[in-house]
């Protein structure tokens, strides 16, 4: 996979400019962290990378033919099904043993056989993250993936996420600079200052 090159990306919703001539290069095979408070277009940028939004103007080079996996800001799980079914939905090639091993690594071993609707918020977040990590992908987009996890578990999950996504292109959106550091981000983009600079 090549570097992703974002050039002059603009996106407006209901007259409000969310992305204004954004220029950014996301290096292939590395982790890029994007930090910004709410309302600076982090999620919009991810949606453009996923192909769910079309930019008003500007281009993103390097997206053609690549497989994208994502942890959305919301868990977006099938509540009536179990963790294993949710994971297999997006990674049909994964064997039962691989899925069970993943569940154990994410401390979800005892969740087998229960529907996701019975899970706590933290458990749902881990299923959502594991689903993204087990799906085949070239580009991994993570929108606040560790939100809602308790301190000890967060460390373990960050470690496991880092290990499983090693060598892949990862875009991590977060409020927390520590998460960017733990995910070994090679560049940290402060979207807030980037936007303000471009608005000058």
């Amino acid at each position, binding site marked *: 996979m090549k570097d992703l090159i974002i050039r002059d990306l603009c996106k407006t919703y209901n007259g409000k400019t969310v992305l204004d001539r954004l220029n950014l290069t996301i290096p292939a095979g590395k982790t890029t962290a994007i930090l910004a408070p709410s309302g600076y277009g982090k999620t919009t940028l991810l949606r453009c990378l996923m192909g769910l939004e079309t930019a008003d103007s500007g281009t993103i080079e390097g997206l053609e033919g690549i497989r994208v996996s994502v942890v*959305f800001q919301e868990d977006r799980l099938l509540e009536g099904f179990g963790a294993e079914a949710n994971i297999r939905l997006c990674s049909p090639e994964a064997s039962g043993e691989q899925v069970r091993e993943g569940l154990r690594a994410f401390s979800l071993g005892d969740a087998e056989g229960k529907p996701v609707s019975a899970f706590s918020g933290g458990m749902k977040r881990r299923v959502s993250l594991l689903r993204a990590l087990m799906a085949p992908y070239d580009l991994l987009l993570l929108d606040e993936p560790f939100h809602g996890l308790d301190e000890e578990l967060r460390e373990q999950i960050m470690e496991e996420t880092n290990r499983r996504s090693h060598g892949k292109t990862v875009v991590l959106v977060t409020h927390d600079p520590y998460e960017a550091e733990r995910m070994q981000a090679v560049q940290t983009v402060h979207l807030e200052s980037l936007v303000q600079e471009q608005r000058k």
Partner: protein
Amino acid sequence: MKKNFRIWAVLFWLLVWQLGSMAIGSEILLVSPLRVIQTLADMIRQMIFWRSVCFSFIRVFGGFLLGTALGCLLAVLSSRFQVVRELLSPLVLTVRTVPVASFIILALIWFSSKNLSVLISFLMVLPILYTGVLTGIRERDRELLEMARVFHVRPWRKLLMIDIPEVYPYFHSACRTALGLSWKSGIAAEVIGMPKGSIGEHLQQAKVYLDTPTLFAWTVVIVLISLLCERLVLHGMDQGMKMLRRWKG
């Protein structure tokens, strides 16, 4: 299965009915529940009773199944093609608003009365299922659909694990309404058309001969079949959904 009423409440209203009929003192005006039970016991011993039940059941339920199948198919097509939705919209509105008696009389002019209840039950069920399923398809969780799109979820998996579970509550609710209505309209059609050997024919004859006990007994039979049918169909559907969830995880 959720209990909708308490047995003491049923007994209370049966007692009111019994006292009311004793106070009126005329079997033609208001027959007592005991007399209805006695008439019903006599009826179920006769072969003609079971033949009539089968005759009406096959037709009314057949109409329900046809209406359900076509309603679902048209809802899927309408959700995909705007032209189909626009084309069907006035038709569905017409079927929903035209009185059932008008359909029955028209159908009697065009066809024989033998399969009248199939057509009427079908016509009553079709718009309910169509509207319910179409609403369900349009109200599917957008976030889940986006997730399936990004992950390139295979169409069959998406159908079984996202589309069907998302539409199911709307389908279930539409079936519940349609089942009750199919029996009411189907029997009404039989009463007017009087196809030979149907429940409706017996009801009409009971009216002509002022045979109130038989009229009440057949009414009880219709209510029981309708309730039983609703319980069995809805229970079967719920079990099907549970099996799907177990099968897929």
